């Protein structure tokens, strides 16, 4: 861990300013990821700008029934238990509660969760010489390494890391919008454009600028999201990152699927919106065959490596199981 300065600005303007004038500065949320990475020597900011005192810890309804706004500092545990969330977006509550441990969720913030970095072993420990994400141009250690937890969709030869968040999978399925403040003012980034695929620049995780502060996440009103579910498959019963996860919601009408929303976790460099599966389901009858066909359609392009090929079949099964569960919801 390198020496660094610490400041705790009183408002978001000062916070953005501190980061805008210092390219090596970083915002500090719950610190559950950033401090860990600093100890490992992966992140080496020269200044931590502690945003914990900013007034960004509210969950509120947007005017005119258009949705919900979640402040960037709302803790994962508070968000998971919030009545608006459990009532309208159960999938998000389930996703949050399936992540990490109660202690971590008590600290982790909505903004920090969006920006948590991959758990790829080759990224997380600088003892590994190869990692294009940590050290561009050094190669990908995972490609021919121990790649059991790695990506099967949307990866590149440069990087096969996955995004580890559960929360973000639910947000992707819900078409959330990330609101940010920067030196140039405010902007809104649809979640689909927030995280990136690795391509040839795996060192860039997201389309957020380094001097931009996340202030909130907006969830649009989706009436049928009350019939939604998050399914997480992992190696142990609790406190493990997803091997594969599925966030799903179904809009049903007379036993037919009017529309489906599906996002996958643990399979790609970003929360993976399963557009092909969604298309395959639209207008179909609610039945197992349709679910399987949709899962097959989504995973047709998947590619596995030495240790993670099982994820392709696992993802298909998880999609089928999640849809079956959602369809059976009252």
């Amino acid at each position, binding site marked *: *861990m*390198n*020496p660094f300065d610490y400041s705790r600005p009183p408002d978001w303007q000062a916070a953005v300013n501190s980061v805008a004038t210092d390219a090596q500065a970083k915002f500090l949320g719950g610190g559950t990821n950033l401090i860990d990475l600093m*100890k490992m*020597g992966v992140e080496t900011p020269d200044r931590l700008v502690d945003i914990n005192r900013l007034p960004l810890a509210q969950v509120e309804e947007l005017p005119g029934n258009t949705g919900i706004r979640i402040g960037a500092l709302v803790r994962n545990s508070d968000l998971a238990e919030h009545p608006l969330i459990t009532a309208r977006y159960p999938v998000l509550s389930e996703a949050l509660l399936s992540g990490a441990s109660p202690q971590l969720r008590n600290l982790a913030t909505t903004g920090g969760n969006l920006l948590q970095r991959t*758990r790829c*072993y*080759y990224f997380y*420990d600088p*003892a*590994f*010489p190869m990692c294009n994400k940590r050290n561009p141009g050094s190669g990908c*250690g995972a490609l*021919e*390494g*121990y790649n*059991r937890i790695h990506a099967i969709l949307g990866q590149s030869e440069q990087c096969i890391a996955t995004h580890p968040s559960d929360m973000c999978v639910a947000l992707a399925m819900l078409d959330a919008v990330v609101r940010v403040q920067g030196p140039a003012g405010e902007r809104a980034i649809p979640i689909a454009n927030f995280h990136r695929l690795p391509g040839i620049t795996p060192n860039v995780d997201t389309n957020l600028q380094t001097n931009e502060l996340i202030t909130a996440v907006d969830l649009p009103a989706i009436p049928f999201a009350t019939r939604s579910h998050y*399914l997480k*498959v*992992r*190696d*142990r*019963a*609790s*406190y*493990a*990152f997803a*091997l594969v996860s599925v966030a799903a919601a179904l809009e049903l009408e007379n036993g037919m699927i009017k529309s489906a929303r599906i996002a996958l976790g643990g399979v790609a460099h970003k929360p993976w919106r399963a557009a092909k599966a969604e298309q395959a389901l639209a207008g179909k009858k609610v039945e197992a065959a349709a679910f399987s066909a949709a899962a097959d359609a989504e995973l047709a392009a998947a590619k596995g490596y030495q240790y993670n090929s*099982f994820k392709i*079949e*696992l993802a298909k*099964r*998880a999609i*089928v*199981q999640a849809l079956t569960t959602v369809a059976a919801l009252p």
Partner: protein
Amino acid sequence: MANSNILGPARSRVDGPLKVTGYAKYAVEFEIPKCAYAWPVESNIAKGKITAIDIKAAQTSPGVLAVLTHQNASKMADAKGLFEEFAEAHGEDMSQGIRNEQRAPLADDEIHYAGQYVALVVAQTIEQARHAASLVRVSYAPELPILTMEDASKAKKPKKKQDETIQLRKGNVEPALANQNIIRLHETYSTPTETHNPIETSGTIAAWEGDDKLTVWDSTQFVKGVQSILARSYGLKIENVRVICPFVGGAFGCKGALWPHVLLATMAARATRVPVKFHLPRKAMFTGTGHRTPTSQTISLAATSNGKLQAIKHVTGTLTSPVGEFVEVCGARSTGVMYASETIRVEETVYPVNVATPTFMRAPGECPGVYALECALDELSYLLQMDPVELRLMNHAANHPIRDVPFSAKHLKEAYQLGAEKFGWSKRNPQTGQMRDGNLLVGWGMATATYPAHKMSAAAKAILHVDGRATVQCATHDLGTGAYTAFTQISSEQLGVPFEQVTFELGKSDYPFGPVAGGSNSTGTVGTAIHEVAQLLHRALAELAVKDARSPLHGSRPNDIAMVAPGRIALRKNPVTSDSFTDILQRAGRDSITVESELKDPEENEKLAFQSWGAHFCEVKIDSLLPRVQVTRVVSVMNCGRIVNAKTARSQIIGGVVMGIGMALTEETAYDPKTGLPAIANLADYHVPTNADVPPIEVYFVGEPDYAFNPIGARGMGEIGITGIAAAVANAVYHATGKRVRDLPITPDKLI
């Protein structure tokens, strides 16, 4: 049947209040004035040579006191020669402590495995040390490492002690294994590298007084071993080395023998002339304090059609590092004792690889060995269409199969019987894949547990005070097992002093010799020493009494006197003539009386075989679509002689079962196949069971006190709980799914 006289009272831990209030001081928590902090630099190649180390930036970084490397360590520590001499000394005696690595840290420019310490930075604060460590630049000339058993078996085998094949033999297994007319089985089972991961990471504080006095606070399972090794390493008088360790936050074997960090801490303290604390980061626990070697075990069985075993052959491959000495003996003390087979053969080959050094881990050898054998027995039961319990009863060994002497106080049949009854085994559908709970597949499996009864040497000191209190001391250890409490109970019973009035002290090399807290030996070994010191105490009291005209025992012969009731000695033949401990001391004008037992070799009884036994029964539930195995119920019945404390003993068995569930389902230290660096090196990725993975566990004890083994009647039970449980789980998984996974851990991908 379950014999109530084996179960001692369920006492809560005497150190419990200290632990929950934070007052229990662990080794690295001692606050030593002027203490500096060390942080390691580790090799990130697995084999090769260091060509250069640039320490300039680190040396000039704020707060840095020293940067030790192979280029300067010998001069600064002035101990290199001694280390080498020490390294040459062969076959070290366990009672004197052993070093897991013969090579001294920073001895030379050779790299033997990834994670090997190549430098140590010492600074005023831990943050300064950690940052400066990141500034050390090491250049290597890498060589192609050998990382796997497969590669090692192809490579030319170096002539090394590690490479010996260990053999055990009863008759000739081959005729039965070649007989096509009987039932035969031949399968290979493998277990991955597993890492101990106690919550308290290892650590050492070293403080020198001049060049000839050393005090060390070390998280260890063997204070006397650390004392002896440090004295020999630096040529110090043994009494000039003090080792202090009142509490250990878990160990499981990784704190049993001495690791390089202890030597590095003492070298650094000597070089800087200030006390130095080297508390390992979690990551270093994956390379610096050992692990359980991966194993590949091939079991061949032959049996008659009614299930009588004709042959058991157990052939194992394990690994060690180029500088390691430890061997995981997988079959000799389990397959060699378990069943009354006509013929038995056990073989093992140890391959050196460029991976960090393995060591003892809870039931070393027996744990993986019993796993393989007990899975094979289960497979055989299906071939024979015989109930797994019945198959084991059919091959029950009343006598040691190889030595052919009776086992002492063996009650394994009762363990099977009680376990089956409590579990409801008779309701098991013998077919696989037939039992259901809604959508979930249900499987029931069982396995035998076994662990040898070990005894070592110990001595104890007892101080009886005139007010009736007693203090008993031994340089033994409490790894979190409840040893403080058990020894307080044994002292109370043996001395004849109420439990509340006894203080048991341990964890200091100043006390009489206690052996390594390993091999489940402590309760029996130290208990025996307490028994002996109690005899001495009663004798000393008798000698005072017979000389005292006011004592009812005046003029009697001390030999005719013994303790008859708590707090009283009396004539053996006429117990009415008695005197109380406190009266004797009071009348003699003594504040206290102190006695110390002698350290001697333990008495061996060659006419019997001593071994502990047990049976695990377990239930798993599995979603066939998304097949993660959930253990939902375990019943474990153990036969370990007398159980001193029903509560802490139960906790030990539960702990072993939980660790065994981890072994069966989730634990694996995976390495990068190219660099040999551990890919899994933290507690987020190394999956020990969480509460949600742990089912209700019922524990029962059967049998009788084993007084043929020692005067306490206890065979020890810290390790037996983990043996067999992984097999019981794997067998249950097969019963549920019809799929036999022979490669642990059984993660969801292996059941898809």
